[in-house]
Each structure stands twice: as C-alpha cells, then as structure tokens.
C-alpha cells in the first residue's frame, strides 16, 4: 500500500492528512512544538503509523509524496522575532527600505504610527559600486567596502544577510561577488541575493523581498533540513516538498534559494483544496472561502487557475513575487459585534480569539461574537459544539447580545442577532466582491467552495446575496488547507527582463529566453522524477501601452515557438484585459512587453478518490430531530429538521430549511435551498 502525506504546521496544531492509493483518508492533529517543529512531525508520523498498523519506517518507505506547509515564516515576520539580519546595498541608497514608496496610507489620521522596518539603519550598510540601466558597470565593486561592512555585521552578531544592489536585475555580477566575500568572512551565515529572489525592476520591492527572505530563512532552514535528513535516513526515496505562496510546491533546495516563497504557505493551499473537489465535478470556476476563528480568506479560481497578485505586503513591506491572491478580512466565529461612535452596528475586525473566546464559552468573554449569534439563532447546537467536546452556554450568548447591541439599538435579541449575522455576511460578501466584481468578474458564473468550521453556516446566505447558483462543501472542509497540500502540483515561477514591442517583436530573442527558462524548469522537474509528459509550461508576459508605466500580466501562446502570426492575438489579449479591468483600451497604440514569465508545473498523478455508491435509503434515516431555528425571511424561529452529517450518503437530498451537524462543522440549508451528497461524499448546495 502506497501513501501520500500532507503536513501543515499551524500556530497551535500541526495537521496531518494521509491518503492511501485506495483513497482512504486519515487525519491527525499534534500540538505544534515551536522550539523544534520537527518533534511534532515525528510524533504525528508515529501516531499515523500506529493507526495504519505499520512501523514508522514502513510508513515513511511507503510514502510517494511528503508535502509540508507552515505558518512559521508568516509568524516570524508578523511577530518580528526573526534573526538579526543585515543588508548590503549600493552606496548612496542606504534608506531604500526606510523611504518605501513615500506613501502614507491614511491621509487624515495625523497620528498614524509608522510600521518599523525589518532592518535598522545601523545594519543597512553601503558597498561602493554602481551599474547603470543597461547593465554597464559605472563603478567597479570595491571589495574593501564589502569587507568593512561585514566587519560591522560580525561585531553585531548578524545571523542572516540580504544583498540588494541597484540594477542587479540586468547585471548580477556585483551581487554574486559580494556573496562570495561574505560567505568567506561569515561562514555559516546565509546570504540571499535580490537577483535570485526577485529579478524585477523597482529597487524597493526587490530589496524588501530579499530582506524578508533573509529574515525568514534561518527559522525554516534548520528544522526542514533536519526533517529531510530524518526522512532520508528512514527510507523516504524522494525530495521533501514544501508548499509555496504561489499555490504550488517546491523542493527544499529551491525554497532555500528563494525563501520568500515560504511565506503564507498555509492559506495558499486553500484554492488547491477547493479546485480538487470542484474539478472532479467538472467545475473549474470557483471562489474558495475559508472562515475560521478570526479571519475569512477568499480566493478566485478561474478556468482552474487561482488568481495571483503582485501586491502582497507584510507590515507595509512588499513581498514582490506573485502570490496566490488570498484576500483576508477579520470575519470569523470570534469576530466581535460593536456599535461605533455614530451609532452604526459593526462586526470585527477585532476577534475574541480562543481566549477569552465567544461569550458562550464563559471564559471571561462578555462581547457578543458571530459564534454567539449562531448559537442564539439556533444554527449551532449548544450540546454538539466540536462534537460535544466544548460546553457552551446559549444564555451567555443572549446576554452579551442584549447588553451590547440589542438594548442600545432598541431591538429584540433575535433582531440584533440577525442584524449581526447579516452584517458579518455583508463584510464577507464585500470581501468576495473585492476579488471578483471589482476585477470585472461576475461571481454568478462561479461555484462557491466552502471551508472552515463556520463557513458552511454562512455559505447559503453569501451565495444567495451574490446570486451564485451552487456551493460545494467538501466533507473535509474543516481541515481545508492541509487537504489542499497533498493535491497541489510542484510549481516553479521564473522571470526574465527584456524590453520589446509589438511593432517589432524580437521573436528570436524571446523564443530563446523561453527556451532557456523552460530548459531550466524542465531539468529541475525531471530531476524530481517528473516525466516530460507530466510537466506543463505556461507562458506570460507583462504588457503595457508604449508610453504607459504599469504593466498587466497577460497569457502568451504556450506551445511551440511564438510566431509572427501570434503577435496580433497577443496585442488583442492585452487590449481586451485592459478594457475589462479599466473600462477602456487604446487599440491604436503599440504594446510593450517587458518581463517574460513562465510557470512550470510538475503535475501530480491523480489521487484515487473514494467513490461512494448511491444509497436507496431515505434521507429521514440521517435526521436527528428538530429544533427551532431563526429564519431571516420570516423574521421568526421556525421548527427545522436537524441531520447528522456522518449519516448523509450519496443519493440523499436535504430540503431546506435544515441544519446538518458534523464534528468539525455545521451546514445551514436555507428555505428553498436543497443539498445533495455527491459520489465523493461532498455536500453540494443548490443556493437558489
């Protein structure tokens, strides 16, 4: 029996998803061990081996794939507890990181504090050199200036070094030379180059990306290198794969060269999870949503491709590389409802978190949360929260809602609860609009895929407000991201800068660039065991009107050489996208193309999903009973059927209004909505 394994290290728990080649799935949770994250992984492996009746070594030997994701890198930058990091930059430009783009976010907030930089000025040191925009050396690298700077690093005990010189994108030779000198003088200290991490124009974004890389590298390199060694010593015959923020996986070696890709690797698996469940239903336009305790994450997936962004930031520092565009807002079960100074009802972004948690936990929280609302409205069963493992008090929920919201606004408890429910829904609808409507995409052509414990309570309402037809709720929606990791393809994003123009496209040069980038990617993927037939290449370019400043990324023909006859289509692709996004285009203008990009995917073999037979049993066999549940339309409680999710089988249909209870999630089916169980055991909600 062969297996594949996904392991996601979160802040609290390390999640495991193990699938065998018959599609049987085992899930496991271990408490995360921050001092050495590898401990929880090894403990979890032992536990999973035991469930399967195997020795640890037997389990590891049976693994075809070990995919690992983590929030360690994200937590390091958010909590700023990374190593002492130094930056070497071009003389005269020591403050690129400090000046940023000169923008202050909130014009009218004159007391807005400024986010701190990741490297203070005394560790941002200049080296003497200069290259111009053509790549010509104006001033040769003064090696002595490098050695002087490194002396300062040594004195301060610098543990990681970033190098970001002007114009290294067109001539990386100075950066490479600097790396050699630093490596010699500071053995064992990692050196990250901007020309490796982000070979793109704009020094602030590139410097920031390199600094973030150097800042997170030590925290992820030690335990992952040890983990890879441990796995190899126990018979694992492949590379350890790591989830990246672009939604694909990469080998550890690739990641250590470009550590920025390790940021946010957890949530980036969401779209893969969603797509996996959707594509087997022949659906490839989906919006994935994941509603946890504090945040609500949304991502658009169009034609099977998750949306990417170039504008992701951490503490106002740009990440710079393209990342899965996961739009997050503070809306979750723990989000607190409050009344602002003008008397308007608001929900979030503050969250009661796990401690003190919602009022119903009775752990000291006296603010009404979304979970309290879901309890009061009858959506959550107080006796079956987390499968009955957590006792909650519905009275406490009602008291908090009354005191903070209902009384001041002159509403009944139910009206206030329903109001909060609708506002948090509105916030989530707005979040979905940000990634869809505001990009010129109509969400009505999409399916919702719903994850997170609280997601399926709200999905029917969100979908209805957006006019969407169908929501897919995976059976394992409660552990959305670890599930996504084992179904994510291996992915390499490569980019090269070269200016050309549709009036005189230098086809020879462009085809040469693509052939080099593709050669590099294919060689890398082949070395990981992917045959050419399982490698997919997609080409893109950043395009703009000749006199325009910012670019849009457009897809290019991805098979064979780019031909003269393709040029018209390439230009039209740009005009069309420009018009859809910005309400106009300038067809009479030539189109400039600058960054040439490829995405290379090593496609995983399809995992065998377990298929269930249709049952002839009536749905009533899965019904647990009835209870009063609030109906927004009717404005009152209605007697509503309650189902046991574990007993619902392929072939059954639940007619709303109804509530489905599972250990890790609750599904609400509104009136006039129906829910079917598909052949894979997932819930499919007809929103209506």
């Amino acid at each position: 029996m062969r297996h594949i394994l996904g392991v996601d290290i979160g802040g609290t728990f390390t999640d495991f998803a193990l699938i065998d080649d018959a599609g049987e799935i085992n899930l496991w949770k271990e408490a995360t061990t921050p001092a050495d994250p590898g401990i929880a992984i090894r403990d979890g492996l032992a536990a999973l081996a035991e469930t399967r009746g195997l020795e640890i070594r037997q389990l590891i030997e049976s693994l075809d794939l070990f995919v690992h994701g983590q929030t360690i890198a994200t937590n390091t930058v958010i909590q700023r507890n990374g190593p002492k990091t130094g930056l070497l930059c071009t003389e005269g430009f020591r403050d690129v990181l400090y000046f940023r783009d000169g923008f202050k976010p909130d014009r009218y907030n004159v007391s807005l504090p400024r986010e701190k930089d990741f490297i203070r000025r005394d560790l941002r040191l200049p080296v003497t050199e200069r290259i111009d925009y053509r790549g010509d050396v104006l001033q040769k690298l003064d090696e002595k200036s490098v050695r002087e700077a490194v002396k300062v690093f040594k004195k301060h005990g610098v543990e990681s070094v970033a190098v970001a010189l002007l114009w290294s994108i067109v001539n990386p030779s100075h950066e490479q030379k600097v790396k050699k000198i630093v490596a010699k003088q500071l053995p064992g200290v990692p050196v990250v180059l901007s020309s490796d991490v982000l070979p793109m124009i704009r020094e602030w974004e590139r410097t920031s990306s390199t600094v973030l890389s150097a800042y997170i590298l030590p925290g992820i390199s030690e335990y992952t290198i040890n983990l890879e060694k441990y796995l190899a010593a126990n018979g694992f015959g492949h590379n350890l794969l790591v989830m990246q923020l672009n939604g694909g996986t990469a080998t550890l070696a690739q990641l250590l060269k470009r550590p920025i890709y390790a940021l946010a690797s957890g949530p980036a698996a969401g779209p893969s999870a969603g797509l996996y469940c959707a594509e087997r239903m022949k659906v490839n336009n989906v919006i994935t949503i994941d509603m946890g305790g504090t945040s609500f994450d949304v991502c658009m997936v169009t034609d099977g491709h998750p949306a990417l962004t170039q504008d992701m930031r951490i503490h106002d520092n740009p990440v710079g590389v393209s990342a899965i565009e996961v739009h997050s807002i503070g809306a979750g079960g723990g989000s607190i409802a409050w009344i602002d100074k003008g008397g308007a009802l608001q929900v979030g972004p503050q969250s009661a978190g796990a401690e003190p948690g919602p009022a119903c936990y009775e752990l000291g929280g006296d603010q009404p949360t979304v979970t309290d609302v879901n309890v009061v409205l009858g959506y959550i069963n107080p006796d079956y929260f987390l499968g009955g493992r957590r006792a909650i008090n519905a009275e406490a929920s009602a008291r908090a809602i009354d005191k903070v919201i209902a009384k001041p606004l002159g509403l009944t408890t139910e009206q206030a609860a329903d109001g909060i429910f609708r506002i948090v829904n509105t916030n989530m609808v707005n979040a979905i609009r940000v990634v869809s409507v505001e990009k010129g995409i109509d969400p009505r052509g999409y399916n919702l895929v719903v994850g997170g414990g609280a997601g399926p309570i709200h999905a029917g309402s969100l979908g209805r407000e957006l006019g969407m037809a169908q929501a897919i709720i995976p059976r394992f929606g409660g552990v959305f991201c670890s599930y996504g990791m084992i179904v994510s393809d291996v992915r390499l994003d490569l980019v090269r800068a070269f200016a050309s123009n549709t009036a005189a496209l230098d086809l020879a040069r462009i085809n040469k660039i693509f052939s080099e980038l593709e050669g590099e990617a294919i060689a890398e993927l082949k070395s990981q065991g992917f045959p050419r037939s399982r490698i997919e290449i997609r080409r893109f370019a950043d395009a703009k009107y000749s006199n325009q400043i910012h670019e849009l990324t457009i897809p290019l023909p991805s098979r064979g050489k780019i031909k003269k006859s393709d040029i018209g289509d390439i230009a039209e692709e740009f005009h069309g996208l420009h018009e859809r996004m910005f309400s106009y285009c300038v067809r009479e203008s030539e189109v400039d193309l600058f960054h040439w990009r490829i995405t290379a995917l090593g496609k995983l073999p399809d995992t065998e999903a377990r298929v269930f037979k249709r049952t002839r049993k009536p749905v009533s066999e899965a019904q647990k009973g009835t209870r009063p549940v609030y109906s927004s339309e009717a404005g009152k409680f209605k007697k509503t059927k309650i189902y046991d999710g574990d007993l619902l089988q392929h072939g059954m249909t639940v007619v709303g209004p109804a509530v489905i209870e599972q250990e890790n999630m609750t599904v609400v089916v509104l009136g006039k909505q129906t829910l079917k169980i598909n052949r894979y055991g997932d819930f499919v909600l007809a929103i209506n």
Partner: protein
Amino acid sequence: MAKPGPKPRKSAAGKSGNSLDPITFSVILNRFNTIADEMTLTMEKTAWTSIIALARDFSCAIYDAKARQICMMDALPVHTNSMHVVLREIARVFEGNIHDGDVIVCNHAYSGNTHVGDFVTACPIFHDGKHMFWSMTKGHQLDCGAFIPTSTPAAAQNVWQEGLQLPPIKFYEKGKRREDVVRMYLANMRWQEWLYGDFMAQLGSIWTGRRRLVELAETYGNDEMEKYVEGIFDYADMRMASEIRTMPDGDYDGVSWLDTDGQGGTNIEVRARVSIRDDKVHINFAGSAPQTPGANNSSFGVMQAAAGIPIMCAIDPSIPHNDGCLRHISAEAPEGSVCNAQYPASTALATIGPDDTMQDAVWKALAKAVPERVIGGNGRIPNVPFFSGTDSREAEDREWGCMFFNGATAGGASSSTDGWPLIMTSAGMGGLKILSVEMSEMLYPMRIDRQEINTDSMGHGKYHGGPGVNIQISPTSGAMECNLFGDGQLNPPFGVMGGTQGMGGGSYKESLTTGKRTYCSSKGRIIIAEDEVWVGESSGGGGYGIALSRDPELVLGSVLEGLLSVACAKRVYGVVIDAATMTVDPKKTKALRKKLRAAGVSRHVTVPNVPGAADWAQRRLRPGDEFLIDPQ
C-alpha cells in the same frame, strides 16, 4: 471652555434615519468606498506619465446630482476638499444641458478649480432617466501649455502665461467624443502623446465609476438610493457636529509666510482667524497680503480646501469625509488678496506654496484651540524640481519632462508619534509617491547618485518631525532644464508646544569642474549642464513638545535609525550616548538634562512667528558660491 459631550444617538442614520435599515445603510456606505477605490486604481495603474502613475498626483471622488461629495478614497486633501466647488460651476454652466454620456472637463482656476495644472474630468450618471451621481477625477497634468516646460510656472504673471485655459467644456456629448475639441486641447500641450494617455486614464476612471454606480442604482432603485445617500450625509453631519462641539468656542489667530512670489518679492504674509462656534468652524484670511505679481497666489478653490484640511485632520479619521462633514466648515478671504486672487492674476502654484502657507496659518491658530490634535508643520517642497530636456540615448531623440518628488520634505510630529518622511506637502498629506530609482533612470536620461536620510534636518521635540532627504542627480544626455516651484526654504516647518522648527533646506547645482555652487530659492528656472549635478537637501517636519522630555531610549533609537546624530542627541535632547557601545549613559544624561532645563525651555504654542526664520542657505554658502532668487 469645553462644551458638554455629544448626545448619543440611537440610529446610525441620524436625522432622516428612522426609516433606514441600518444593515443596508452599512452596505451602501461601504460600496461607495470600494467604487471610489476602483476608480483610483484605474487611474494609477493605467496613466501614461509618472506624475499620475508613480507619484499619484490625482484624486477620484463621487458626488450626488446636487454636486455634494458622497465619497473619496485615498485622495489628495487639496483636491477633495474643494472638488465640489468646480463641480458646482460645471453644473451651473451646463444647467439644462447635462446628458447621459457627457464628459465635462475643466482646468480653469476662475471656474472653481484649484490651479491650471489640475485637469478635471466629470461625468453625470443617469439611471432610469434620472441624473443620480457624478463621478469625477482631478489629475495634475505634466503640461498645460505654459511658456516654459512645466505645469507649475512660478514666474507666470497672468492666466495667459499659465497655458491653455479650459473653463467647463464638453469633451464628450451624449457618448460621442468631440474629436475637434480634444485635438484643440492636445495641440496646446507639450508631450501630447503622454498626455493623451493620462486623459484616457481619467476617462477610464470616471467610466469605471459610472459602471459601478449604475449597478448600485439598479440594485436599490433611485428612490431608495437617494434616501440612503441623505442618510450617509446625515451620519457624517451628526458625527462632525459632535466632534466640533468638543472644541472650545472662540477666535484663534495664526500667521505664516510664503518665501517668494516667483517675481523676487519675499516673505508674503498670510493670516488666518479660526472661529469655532458650537458645531461650526469659520476661517477668515482677512489681513493677508495683497495678491502677488507672480504665480504664487491662491485660487478660490484652494483657499476653501486649505481652510478646511487642518480641521478635517483634527477630527476622528473614521468619520466619512463627505458633504455632511464639509458643511460644518466655511471659509472666506478678501478678493484680491494672496489667498483669493482676482482675475487675471496667475494662480499656477496655488496648490503648493499658497495652500501650505494658508494651512500653516490655520494649523497654528488651531494649536491654540486644540493643541493635542495638531501636528508640527509639514515641509513645502522647496526642492521638488520639474526636469525636462532632450533624451538622445536611443537612435531617435525624444523630448522628456518629469516632476521629480524623490527629494521632497517630511511631515511634522503629532502629540503621540514622530513625523513621517516624504509627506511632501500639507496639500497632499502623504498621498504622493516617490519614483523608483531604477524606473527613473530607465524612463529619463538622468542618474541618481544619492538618495538618503538627511540627518538632523527636522524639528525636535518629545516627538520629532520626519527626516528630509539628501539627493543628488546627474543629467546623462545633455543639459537638463530644472524648474522649481515650491516653497519653505526661508520659512521652515513650524514646531508646536515647545517643539522646534525644521531646517528649511533647498537645492543648488554644483559644477563638477570648478566646484562652484549656485543656490536657487524655492522657485525659479535653472539649467543643469552636462558637467553639473543638482543637489537637494530637504527639511524634516516640525517637532512636537519639549525635546528634553523625549524618552532617552527613543532618542537612541532615532540615532540608530540615522535620523539624529549623536551630537544632536546631546545638544538638543540632553541625551549622552556612548559612541563605542551605542548605549545611553543614564547618569550623564540626567545631569545634562537638569542643566539644560535650568537654562530654560521654550514653551511657545508654535514657532517661528517671524518671517524668514530658516538660515539653511546662509549657513551653507561658501566664498564664490552664488544665491539666486526666483531666476527666470
């Protein structure tokens, strides 16, 4: 004397609110924000000049059919606090002749616009045959056809020298472009192939607004829509009223000075009286100097904005900045004064020196009323040049021009935070961006030699201003024309409540062969020859509170950040830092602070209150250097 606090209200919707659903109210309020945001993105991402696409010198906003501001996002205060003025003139001029598909433009300062460089596009939005909204942009044009290559010609003596004047005029009528009019407009512009792209971006922005606003009206219907828009105004109105009632009633005076008028006149005085009565604020600029012969005069629109911005900054930033808010502020200035020039005087620099000088007078007055809510002075960009020339780097020569913000000034400190760098102007309040060094060197024939923190350039205090910038630029393709149009070299950012003033700062060119430096006042036209470099040293912002009371560890932090020198920490802050270990010596610090306190501490509400208080240039001048005032 403080008044009793605001009475709590039950409903979000205020006066007209009894029939409004609070949930729908929040949904619509947020929807307007996202629409304005999308308009802004369209403009920034698609414009063809760096002044719009990189520096972000533009604003987008939404108005109702009565030209009342509903929403603006991330825009420039000097624009959005006065865009209703020009929109009302547009609506007046075309009354009875406003149709679906029209696009009306205007750059005319005497039609309520800010200055000739600001180009307005506005489109009326109809739903079910009824005029419901206006979507509107204002973008600073790279050129407006003036007698020198800049849209901010400091030496212009009247409107005819400023360039093409466009009073409200239709560029589109009922959806059809008036090609002849657009051609006439472009024919008057330098770099028209670039300006055409900016024009299209400004159209794209208002059309994107139209698409979304029509969708919104479709969702709720016209009657509901109008009801909720009134509710949104009332909501802001109510919150603004409560906020102003927390300010003590009274009359408060402030004074400040413009460096020069563009024609050699110096230290032009601006006076402001801020009168707070119950829930209203009135600003009167009576007593200010007469209008000047150069371009350094305010238009009516800028005067309205400059009066209101400090008030808008002194309120809770979460209050929506719409008409409900604006209606609590009124402003006047004598006609023919530097604050409200009379036709045909030039107002080409209105949004720059005049705006910021008027704002400084208002801020200083406000400091007497609500000191905890004001900030130290922001710099007024004496060293943001408008460069131009011929680019011969490629086979084909190309004319180029660029407003270059990278060496700009910083912002003042608040009562709880240090100032930000690169706030640039009070008109923009940090909404303008700098250009990437690499993008600049690729787009324009220049090399940036240095762009770093200007240590000790700010005003000091318990919180200090943000730092200025040291910048040096070399032309790489022949000589480069440099037009300066800012202010604040002689009159530095002010300090508040014992905080000190910023450095002032400015710019000069230096000959690489002789080493001679030619300093230029904050306005003027100079040529940077191929063997010369242009050097800017900008001022940091004004300080807040007493420097001797700044936490010594924070002083050390600022030293390690390169904002303060070790010597300045000692001299001004009384903090002794051991240079070997870079730690604070607590004992020596205590003793020094005691001594400095005994010598006396300034407790002025604001400083300076005399003209020409910055001596940056005098201190820098060496034998053989020269200083030019308003060269033409």
